[in-house]
Each structure stands twice: as structure tokens, then as C-alpha cells.
């Protein structure tokens, strides 16, 4: 093992092994029955991308429906309020349960995490495949529910509306239930992997920060998801047998449903954002050629975010009839979330300070993340303030806030991660030029779409409403135009990546000069990841020994 990489090394002059995980075995059956974490990761990537496409189409339809208050297109009314309710519900359900929760952990982390640890696979490869098929099963249930009339409850399934409304609520709830178990299995697998399969010599604080982030995420998946599962079962039973727990007509307590739901779903927000932060912790040191600032602080902040996420869920219910005492307690606790989030942001900025920064596509996404997450995070503090929250609850301000965190942060980080590991996963380089243009369009389109919603929300435009006052028309239209720019950017990104599979340059083993172990494999990696068992010889992000030339 060399401590230093000679300038030539990163250009991929090492002979490539003939067999890699992509061509070791061939045929559709060899993929469907694979227990290779890399192939499962790729299958997940295809799956969640499809879900993102479906959810994205619904999002565009929602925006289109709100283009003008008459809901007309070319002079004709094209959408009813009921259809609109189904649009935003399906957008939410697909994006949350089918896309964003599995997105980074199940696709990118599945591929990269074992390699970062120098392991051959995850701890339970067959469970990993089972988790994928559960995801597929959940997706089938979800799509069936959409075809059979759809769901109009919103992704939160609040009772008593969800226990009384028509539509395929039962099927959709089953879908979320199954997807929950898929998520649990992924988390269980990662925890066991991190505990038992680290490379010789790799202690807890030698792990890349991506692994820390995914580990923290897995903790949440294990501890929170079972409560969602049982809550959804209770919801189904309440709907069919009127068991009297959530529906006040049968002696139940609807606020109880919100407690149960948010005990999962608030931590679930951190299942979404913590992996995004984990990717950023990889991108920033790599493209700043500098050791990460505050390694332990970032590692601990990931875990403390995971733990804090369990004691703040009541802030979703400030105006739902929760007691004043509980409101005050949850409000105070919610402010704490800002601390680990702030720790991360300042450490990333300090890492970049005096670094040798280069602006390849993954870094452009990382910089977008820093900007958008700062907005998304700081507006979150508005909501933990009780008095302000009462004014802003259920307005577009909420919509804008969580899209800045979910889409603007997690999804942008996900895209950054895809661009970062694309050469490793596919063995191909994409066009930097088109990658940068797509990133710029996404950034601009995103801010047009959701930045404008902060303004509407502050002025009192309620969320989920089909009709609105004429005075909001220009802002709504601007937001809709933004969604088109965003869509163009996303398509450009997808085409750029897909084209690279055919015509892209062959990727060197370590195109970005990364210091973590996955870059010690060939691109694409061989079936068992490494030709030789890698041994930890330096700390992660140790650029002192590295001379790196850019491709």
C-alpha cells in the first residue's frame, strides 16, 4: 500500500481487472437473485429514481393546477379540487415513502458503505435483497392504490379524515407499512455491518463521516419505524372495525394518532436529512483537498441529531390540541436541534477555509446544499417558536421550509453523491460541462419554486388549498414557472448521466483524489470489492500525504 498517490495514479493507468461486479455474471436473473450489495444498491438507485420521476410528475401537476386561481389551461378548467387533493397526496406519499427515505441509505450507502469499511459485503446480504423486494412490494401496493382511485388524505393520513374518506387509503397504508419493514431491514443491516465488518485497524473514529451519518440514520430506522408500522395497523383497524382509538366518533382521540404518527415521522425527517449531511461531509474535504475540520464534532453531531429527533415530535401539533405544557416542552427541545446542525455547517465552512477548492459537479451540489440548507434550517427555527408557529402553521411557509430541507438539502446532496460515486459505480465519467449547467438550472429553478412560497406563506396563503385569493396569483405563477426550470435541470442531469454510460470516458480508480477506502478499488469494483483486503493506514481525509492531480 502506497501512502502517496503519484500524479499519474489518479489518471487510471493501473490495468483494469477484466471482471467486475457488472460483468461477473450476466442476465436478468443474475441481477434479481444477487446478494451483492453493489448490485442491490444499483437496483435501488433505479427504483428510487423511478419513484422520483412519478412523484415529480405529480409535483408538476400540483404546480400546474395552481398556475391561476381559475385552474384553467388554454381557457378551459382542467382539474377539480378532488383531483388536486389526490395529486398532492400522491406526490407526498411517493416522495416520502418510496423515494426520499430509501434514497440515500438504500442506494448510495448500500453501494458505498461496505466499501468504505473495507468489507466485502453488508453483514446480512440476503436480508439486504429481501429489503429490496419489500420495497418493490410496497411500491406495487402504492401504485395499485393510485390506479384504483388514489388517496386524498395527504401523506400524513390524519384521522378522522383518513378513517372516513373514500379511496384506496387501505392499500396506501399497507404500502407504507411494507416500506417501513424494508427500511427497518436496511437499518438493521447497516448497524451490524458497522459494528462487525470494519477493516483491520479501523476503529470507530477512523470511519469516514458518511458511515457515521448512515449509522445514525440506521439507529432512527430501527427505533422509530416499528411505531409507524403499528400505528398504520391501528389506522387500518380503526377504518375497518372502528376499534375506537383514533376516531372521536367511536371514543378515540385523533391527537393520539398525531402523536403516534410523528413519533415516527419526525425522526423520519432525520432519516432523510442526516444521510444528505453525511454525503456533504465527504464532498467538502475531497474537493477542498483538506482534512475535515472537527471530525469528532461532526460524528457526534450526527448521532446527537438522531437522538434529538426523538424528543421534538410534538412541534407538529402545536395547534392540534396538544396541551400548553407539552407545547412549551416540545418548543424548548426543538430549539436544541439547531445546535448539532450548526456544528456541522460551521465545520464544513471551516474545512473549506484556506482549502484548495475545485468546482467539479459534486462540489457544485455541495455548495448548493450549504446555501439551501442554511435557509431551510434557519426557517425551521421559526416553527419551534410557539408564537410565530401559530401564525405560520399550515401555510406555504411550512411547505417552503420543508422543501428547502428535503429537496434543497437531501435531494441536492443525493445528486451530489450520485455524481461523486458515479465513476466508481459505472466506470464512466460524465460531462462536467453539462453537469454544471444542470446543477445551475436545478439551483435556480428550485429557488424560484420554493423561495416564492416563503413570501406567500408569510402573507397567509394556506397550504393544501385548491382555491386562493387573486392577490397570490403572480407569486403562484412564478413558483410554477420555477418548477418548469427545475424540471428542465433534472432532465438535463438525468440525460447527462445516462449518456455517459454509452459515451463517457473510462473512469480512473480515484478520479477526485478521495481518501476513503472505496477509492482503493477499481472502477467499477470487482465482485468482492477489493483485489486485496485494504488495511487502514491513515486517518480519513488525510491529505497531508496526498498529491492529487485533477482529471
Amino acid at each position: 500500500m502506497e501512502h502517496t498517490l503519484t500524479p499519474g495514479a489518479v489518471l487510471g493507468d493501473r490495468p483494469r481487472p477484466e471482471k467486475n461486479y457488472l460483468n461477473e455474471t450476466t442476465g436478468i436473473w443474475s441481477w434479481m437473485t444477487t446478494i451483492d450489495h453493489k448490485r442491490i444498491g444499483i437496483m435501488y438507485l433505479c427504483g428510487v429514481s423511478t419513484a422520483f420521476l412519478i412523484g415529480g410528475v405529480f409535483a408538476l401537476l400540483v404546480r400546474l393546477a395552481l398556475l391561476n386561481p381559475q385552474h384553467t389551461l388554454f381557457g378551459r378548467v382542467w382539474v377539480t379540487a378532488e383531483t388536486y387533493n389526490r395529486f398532492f397526496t400522491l406526490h407526498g406519499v411517493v416522495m416520502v415513502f418510496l423515494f426520499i427515505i430509501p434514497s440515500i441509505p438504500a442506494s448510495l450507502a448500500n453501494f458505498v458503505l461496505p466499501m468504505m469499511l473495507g468489507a466485502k459485503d453488508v453483514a446480512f446480504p440476503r436480508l439486504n435483497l429481501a429489503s429490496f423486494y419489500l420495497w418493490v412490494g410496497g411500491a406495487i401496493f402504492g401504485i395499485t392504490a393510485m390506479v384504483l382511485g388514489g388517496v386524498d388524505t395527504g401523506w400524513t393520513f390524519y384521522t378522522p379524515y383518513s378513517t372516513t374518506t373514500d379511496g384506496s387509503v387501505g392499500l396506501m397504508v399497507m404500502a407504507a407499512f411494507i416500506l417501513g419493514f424494508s427500511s427497518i431491514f436496511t437499518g438493521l443491516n447497516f448497524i451490524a455491518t458497522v459494528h462487525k465488518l470494519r477493516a483491520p485497524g479501523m476503529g470507530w473514529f477512523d470511519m469516514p463521516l458518511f458511515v457515521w451519518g448512515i449509522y445514525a440514520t440506521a439507529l432512527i430506522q430501527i427505533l422509530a419505524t416499528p411505531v409507524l408500522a403499528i400505528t398504520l395497523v391501528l389506522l387500518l383497524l380503526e377504518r375497518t372495525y372502528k376499534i375506537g382509538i383514533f376516531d372521536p366518533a367511536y371514543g378515540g382521540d385523533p391527537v393520539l394518532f398525531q402523536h403516534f404518527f410523528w413519533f415516527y415521522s419526525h425522526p423520519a425527517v432525520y432519516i432523510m436529512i442526516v444521510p444528505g449531511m453525511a454525503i456533504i461531509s465527504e464532498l467538502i474535504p475531497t474537493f477542498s483537498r483538506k482534512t475535515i475540520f472537527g471530525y469528532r464534532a461532526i460524528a457526534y453531531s450526527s448521532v446527537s441529531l438522531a437522538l434529538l429527533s426523538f424528543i421534538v415530535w410534538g412541534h407538529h401539533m402545536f395547534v392540534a390540541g396538544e396541551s400548553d405544557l407539552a407545547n412549551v416542552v416540545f418548543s424548548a427541545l426543538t430549539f436544541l436541534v439547531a445546535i448539532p446542525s450548526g456544528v456541522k455547517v460551521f465545520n464544513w465552512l471551516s474545512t473549506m477555509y484556506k482549502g484548495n477548492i475545485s468546482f467539479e459537479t459534486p462540489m457544485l451540489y455541495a455548495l448548493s446544499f450549504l446555501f439551501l440548507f442554511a435557509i431551510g434550517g434557519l426557517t425551521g427555527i421559526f416553527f419551534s417558536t410557539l408564537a410565530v408557529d401559530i401564525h405560520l402553521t399550515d401555510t406555504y411557509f411550512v411547505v417552503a421550509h420543508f422543501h428547502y430541507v428535503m429537496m434543497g438539502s437531501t435531494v441536492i446532496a443525493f445528486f451530489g453523491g450520485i455524481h461523486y460515486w458515479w465513476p466508481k459505480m459505472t466506470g464512466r465519467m460524465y460531462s462536467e460541462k453539462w453537469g454544471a449547467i444542470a446543477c445551475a438550472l436545478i439551483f435556480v429553478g428550485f429557488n424560484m419554486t420554493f423561495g416564492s412560497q416563503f413570501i406567500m406563506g408569510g402573507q397567509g396563503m394556506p397550504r393544501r388549498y385548491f382555491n386562493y385569493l387573486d392577490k397570490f396569483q403572480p407569486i403562484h405563477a412564478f413558483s410554477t414557472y420555477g418548477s418548469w426550470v427545475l424540471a428542465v435541470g433534472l432532465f438535463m442531469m438525468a440525460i447527462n448521466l445516462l449518456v455517459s454510460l454509452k459515451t463517457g470516458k473510462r473512469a480512473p480508480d480515484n478520479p477526485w483524489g478521495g481518501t476513503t477506502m472505496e477509492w482503493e478499488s477499481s472502477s467499477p469494483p470487482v465482485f468482492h470489492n477489493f483485489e486485496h483486503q485494504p488495511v487502514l493506514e491513515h486517518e480519513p481525509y488525510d491529505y497531508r500525504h496526498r498529491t492529487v492531480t485533477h482529471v
Partner: protein
Amino acid sequence: MSDANIHGNSHSGTHSQLDAAPSGHHEHAHDPKAEARVYIATLSGLLILTAITVGASYIQFGSSAANIVIALTIATIKAVLVSLFFMHLLHEKPVNAIIAIAGFLFLGIFLMFDFLDVGSRANVQPTNLHVPVAAAPVAPGVATPAADVRKE
């Protein structure tokens, strides 16, 4: 069960204390007879506690809260006995105990905040609407739960 089989290389002896056994190797440390005696003692303890809790349930300890506390305390002692001896947590690697404790800790968090809210909430329906049955006005068009009243 042999899912981990494909990891031909055993990364052993390199991990931090969290994953390490406390001392020596527990599995073969005891002689089987002594171990069986521990299990018999545990079972006896569990059966005695069951008898106590059933007996205690026939006695009124002032308030129903006292009965609940006593029953749940005994249940918790039994649960601890089962996990320490039958589930081997006493001699298990610490990481497994930490996982088990974390599970109960987070369940505790869940229960604590739920009861914090429900216990301090102004409960408006239907239990605290003390309207006499005979005089209860049932306004037409009022939703079912709001019209529910309770007779004491």
C-alpha cells in the same frame, strides 16, 4: 442464519471495547450443572414473583395508582430476570445490552411525552361533559362526538 458466511475473512481482534467480551469467553466459562442451577433459581424467582403479583392484585393499596405501580414494578423485576439470565445479557457482550436498553429507553421516551400531553391536556370531549342524561339537549346537526354526554 448463515448469512454472514460469505465473509471469509474474519476481522477479529481489532475492534473497540464496545464489541469486546467483558472478560474471557462466557460460553464455556461455567460448568453446565452450575449454569442449570442458575436457570432453576431464576425460574423459581419468576414463579414466586408471579404468585406475589397475583396475591397483591386482590389487596387494595389505597389507590388504584398504587396497585398499578406495584404490579408494574414486579413485572419489571421479572423482565429484568428474564433478560439477564435467560437471555444471557449478564454475560453477553456489552453492545447487545446497550441495544436492549436503548430499545426500552426510546419506548420510555415515547410513553413519557404521550402521557405528558394527555395528562396536562384540557380534555373537552366526551368524558368531561357532565350533562345530566335527562336534560341533555341534542342539537340537530351537531357532530356525534360533541353531542356525546356522560352520566356519572
